[in-house]
Structures are given as structure tokens and as C-alpha cells.
């Protein structure tokens, strides 16, 4: 009972081969697209690598690039198979190869599906990574004279201006960190000494933010310092002031950006999976149809194409038996163990003799 069988005349076979050849070249283009998509995603992630703590999220573009390259090769092979299927003398050399091809192609589809799943599943990891990375960035903002951290100020400033965000969760994160370096603080001034003394760790904290938090859309010139003090500025209310600084936190801004990128690539990847699956199915039909017509004496006659020779359950049972026999080659074979010392295995020998006795008694 063949699964999903279809009749193929010679003309239909030729049509299928031609159609599949075009489809496999389309799949090669899709492979190139997937590769460049992965490359672009990786480039975008690397650009902001300084505010990310770990690189777990990089597995998504890495898989995309690998799958892209593999699918270019796989689908090119499929197009060669199509070309050769029209020539009866050249097709048989692909016979042994095709099973491996099917396994690889299905594996690629599976990997693409995992990429789609991972891009959602790894959101939490990305969030954690950004949380720690941004926290460090804000902490080391003032260390422009420490090697290894001297570019943090520039990075954070550019980030806040480009993504229109301020701080980790919001602008108040800057109130908890000393972002003005001691080099630029006049320690003889009374204000500064008071402020430092009032803090437990001796840090100079203030209710101010760097200039990169300023919102250009605000109608008034930017207020950066003494933000919680309503009386410090004319006609200013801290609670209701919304336009002065960016309200968004940079963590949320970056996550929205990256999730947006990955969501927009979602439909593209799903359609690539669809195309790849149709290539797999069509090639299976072509393979069985051509093999069928090769088996028949009449090369111009009709043949049948199918997905599986037997039904789904039977194929699965066959596969299980094959795998078990393959595994059994590694075990000791009971019939050959009789020559070996029976003392080492008395139960097995007695089992054999009892078995033999049991088998002989009914006969007599």
C-alpha cells in the first residue's frame, strides 16, 4: 500500500523534472537569501556587542548562515539530479546518493524551524545580556581614562542618541551611578564635599543625566541637572515633564529593535522552509517515478511515483528492524559463542541444552 501514489506518464515525468529544476534553482536563491539574512543579523548584533554581556543570541545568525550555505549546495545537487533524470543512462549513479540527500534536506528544514523557534525563545537571554551590559556601560561611563573602558562614554552616548533612549530602564538609572569622573570635580568646593559625604560609598551622585538623554523634540532647551528640584528651573514640574528627556529605557529600545528585525525575517524563513519541503517532495516523486520506469522494460511507458513504498506504520517498523540489526552487529552472536569456554557462561550453555532438549522432546 504505497503512500500518496500518483501515475506518471513519460511526458509528465519530463514536466516534473523541468519544473523541479526551476524550483531547485529558486531554492538556491532562497539559500543565498538566508545566508545574507544571517550575515546581516550577525553584523547588527556585533555592532552593539559592547553593551551585550554574552553572545548566546549569536546562535540564531550562525545557524542561518550555515543553513544558507548548506542549502545552496543541496539544491544545486537537486538541480543536477533533475537534469540527469531525463537521461536514463546517467540517473542510476545518483541512486545511492539520494537517501543521504533526503536526510540532509529534511535536516535543513528542521534547522530553519528551530531558528524561528529560537528567535523567540532567546528573547529572555538577550534581555539578560543587555541588562548586564548596559549596567556596566553606565557604571564605566566616567572611566574615559581607563584602558579597555575609555570608549564606553562614546558608545553609550551614541546608543542613547541613535535609539532615543536613556539609561537601562529609564533615566533614573543615571541618578544611582557616579557618571562624572573625580578628575573633573573640584574637591575644595563645599557643595561637592557635602554631596560625597552624604553618600555611603563616597560616590558623587546627582539628579542629573548626560546630554545624550536630551530629547530634541522638547519645546524648551534641555534641562540636564537638578531634575527632581522643581524650584531650580522656571515653570518646571518634574512629575509632569515628559518631553524634556527620552522616556524609554535603552534595554527596551534595543530589544524592540532586535525582535522587530527577527520578526520581519520570520515570514521569509517560513517561505524558504516551504520551498525546501516542496523540493524534497517533488524530488522523491521524480526519483520513484524514474526508478519505476527504469524497472519496467518499456522506457516510454507509465510508471508510478510515491512518497513511501509501504504505508507509514510499515515503513517505520522496517526502519526499526534495520536499525536494530545494525546495532546487533556490535553484540556477541550466541551461536558462535558455543566454541568459546562454556565455564565462562554456564547459564547460556544450560539454556541452550534445555532449549535443545525442549525442542527434541516434542519431536519424539
Amino acid at each position: 500500500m504505497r503512500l500518496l501514489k500518483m501515475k506518471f506518464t513519460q511526458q509528465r515525468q519530463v514536466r516534473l523534472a523541468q519544473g523541479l529544476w526551476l524550483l531547485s534553482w529558486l531554492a538556491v536563491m532562497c539559500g543565498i537569501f538566508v545566508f545574507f539574512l544571517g550575515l546581516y543579523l550577525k553584523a547588527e548584533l556585533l555592532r552593539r556587542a559592547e553593551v551585550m554581556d554574552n553572545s548566546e543570541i549569536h546562535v540564531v545568525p550562525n545557524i542561518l548562515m550555515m543553513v544558507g550555505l548548506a542549502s545552496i549546495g543541496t539544491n544545486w545537487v537537486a538541480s543536477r539530479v533533475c537534469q540527469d533524470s531525463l537521461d536514463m543512462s546517467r540517473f542510476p549513479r545518483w541512486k545511492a546518493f539520494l537517501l543521504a540527500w533526503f536526510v540532509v534536506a529534511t535536516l535543513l528544514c528542521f534547522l530553519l524551524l528551530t531558528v524561528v523557534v529560537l528567535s523567540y525563545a532567546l528573547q529572555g537571554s538577550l534581555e539578560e545580556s543587555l541588562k548586564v551590559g548596559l549596567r556596566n556601560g553606565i557604571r564605566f561611563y566616567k572611566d574615559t581614562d581607563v584602558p579597555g573602558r575609555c570608549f564606553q562614554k562614546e558608545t553609550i552616548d551614541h546608543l542613547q542618541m541613535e535609539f532615543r533612549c536613556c539609561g537601562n530602564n529609564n533615566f533614573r538609572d543615571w541618578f544611582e551611578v557616579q557618571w562624572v569622573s573625580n578628575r573633573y570635580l573640584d574637591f575644595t568646593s563645599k557643595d561637592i564635599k557635602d554631596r560625597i559625604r552624604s553618600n555611603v560609598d563616597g560616590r558623587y551622585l546627582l539628579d542629573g543625566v548626560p546630554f545624550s538623554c536630551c530629547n530634541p523634540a522638547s519645546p524648551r532647551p534641555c534641562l540636564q541637572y537638578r531634575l527632581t528640584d522643581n524650584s531650580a528651573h522656571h515653570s518646571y514640574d518634574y512629575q509632569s515633564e515628559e518631553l524634556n528627556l527620552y522616556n524609554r529605557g535603552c534595554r527596551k529600545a534595543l530589544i524592540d529593535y532586535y525582535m522587530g528585525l527577527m520578526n520581519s525575517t520570520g515570514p521569509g524563513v517560513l517561505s524558504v522552509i516551504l520551498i525546501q519541503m516542496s523540493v524534497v517532495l517533488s524530488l522523491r516523486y521524480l526519483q520513484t517515478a524514474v526508478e519505476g520506469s527504469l524497472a519496467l522494460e518499456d522506457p516510454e511507458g507509465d510508471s508510478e511515483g510515491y512518497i513511501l513504498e509501504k504505508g507509514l506504520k510499515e515503513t517505520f517498523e522496517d526502519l526499526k528492524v534495520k536499525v536494530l540489526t545494525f546495532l546487533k552487529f556490535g553484540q556477541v552472536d550466541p551461536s558462535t559463542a558455543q566454541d568459546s569456554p562454556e565455564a565462562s557462561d554456564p547459564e547460556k550453555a544450560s539454556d541452550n541444552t534445555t532449549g535443545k532438549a525442549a525442542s527434541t522432546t516434542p519431536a519424539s
Partner: protein
Amino acid sequence: MAVGKLTFTKAEREKLAEVLWMLNWISVVTGAILLSLGVFLKVEIQKWQEVMSEHGIHYVPNTLITTGLAACCINFLGGKICLDCTDTNKFLRWKLVMMPYVICTFFFTSCVLMGALMCYIIRSQLEESLLLGLRNAMRYYKDTDTPGRCYLKKTLDLLQIQFQCCGNSGYRDWFQVQWISNRYLDMTSSLVVDRLRSNVEGRYLMDGVPFSCCSTLSPRPCIQYHISNTSAHFNYDQQSQQLNLWRRGCRQALMDHYTGIMQSIGLTVLLIWLFELLVLTGVRYLQTAMENVIRLGDPDSESDGWILENSLAETARSNFNIIKNLGKCYQVDDDDPNINVPTATTEQEVPSRQVQIPVTS
């Protein structure tokens, strides 16, 4: 004495027609490139239009767009004509159109050249426009409550952030302008009142700049106010002062940006112009060769092709005469025999005879 005379065999004529057909199709593509360059330039100018005082610079992208469209149409037609020129019979269809087509293409090619040259000459006009535009933008920076000017602050801030520039020629331009609106000034404060009174026009001027002038390359947090007063800030040394704000003026920054774009566009358009000139020359040779073949009567014979039938001076003179005669069309023609021309013999007047008309009763 023809200018650029060449002899064409039948095979050469057909080859020329085929080559020109392909070149015309390539020209359609270059016409599309010209169009897209024009659109790109227009979009770039549109982005910062608010800091330009006049919009004369729009001539450049408009010229490029129209010539691009014209290129596509003319060369598409040219492709069709050249394809038909391979066969003498089909050529007869286009015989009357060919000459006007060549003249049109000649004018269009000169338009392309003009477009290319405009990209280079517009520079001084652009500088003037930016000088005035930026000065006005800075003056109206504080007017975020005035309709028509409320987005100037945002535009100017984004400009200074993106192009890493400050002010018109430098950051000191901000010292001469009141950029903080009176709405946000505490008029009861003595400091504010003193400052206002010390200025002739009652403006609140200060040695401070907006936040968008702050440089991201500075190692210290940005110093926006009391910039000229070195003692107002701790450890405010020469290096801090150099790196603190953007040093470049926005006029210079925008000039560099647009000049760069227009120079590369101008170069591309010049190359396209040379290509079009080549195509025009080829079409002219093909036209004259085909016309001569028809004049000779034998479609398989050799024929001459040229750029101009007579020398340049003679062609110019004959064209001038044509134009002169066009104007004379409505004047009295002296050679017309039907009109009485007074000569010496008519001094004797022939007396008129009265003709008696018999009156019938």
C-alpha cells in the same frame, strides 16, 4: 565638402543599425539611472530644506529628472527606429520622422550637458542659501510656540547631532542669538533682569550653546554654559575646551555633504552625456546613409554617411537663410510678375477712357 564623411556597405549599415539598437537600449537604462540620481538628490535636499533660505537649488534635481524621463522616451523610440533601419523598406516608414528625431536628440543631449554643469555651478548659490537659512533657523530656535517655526528647534538639533557641527560658522554664533525663550526665563530673578538690561535690544544673550553642540568625543561631561569663562569649571584646560563641543560650522558641514553628492552625480551625468553623444553620432550616420541609399535607388549598394552635408560654415549660413526666409513669408515678394512694379516707362500716364454704358429704358 561633407563633414565626417564615411562610406557604408550594406552589411556595414545593417551592423550599424544593430549596434545602435543595443546602444539605444543601454541608453534607456542610463536614462533610468539619471532619473534615479535626480530623485535621490531631490530627497536629500528636501531633508534639510528648512535650513535653506531659497529653493533655487531645486532646479538641479528637476532638470535631472526631466532629462532622465526624456532619455528613456527618446532612446526607446530610437531603439525602434534603429531596429527598422536594418531593412530599407521599413526605413521608409520613419523617413520623415528621422530628421526631427535627430534634432530633438541633439537638443536633449545638450540638456544633459547643462544638467551636469549645473551640478558644479550651483555651489555658490547653495552657500548663500545656507548662510541665510541657518542664520534664520538659529534666530527662530526659541520660537517653538510660533506656528510655522515650531519644528525649527528639532530640525536644528537633529542637524547638529547628525552632521557633528555647531552654529553657522562655529559655536560662537550661538552667543549672538537669544536661543532660550522668554517663557522659560524667570523674570523675577535679578540675574536674568540684569542680563536683559545689559543688552541694547533687551535680548537674553549668554555664552552658552544648546545640548546638540556637545561632542561625543569629549572625555568629560559636556560643558554647555559659561563656555568662555575658564574659571567657571574645574580643570577646564585647553584639551577639554577643544574636545568639548563640535568645532565645525553647520554651513561648512552641509556644503561638504552636498558638494560631495553633486560632484559624483555631475561626473556620472557627464559620462552619460558622452555616451548619448556617441549614440547621437551613430544615429546621424545611419540616417544619412539610409537616405543616400534611397536616393541612389539600389538598396544593396554602398552609400555615404556624414554628420553635415556641407561644411560647418555653409550649413550655418543656409540655416540662417532658412530662418530669414521664414520671417519673410508674410512680406511682399519683389519677383512676383502679377504685381505692377513702377518702371521708367510709366511716367507717361495712359489716360483713362470713359466707357459709355448705354442706358436701357
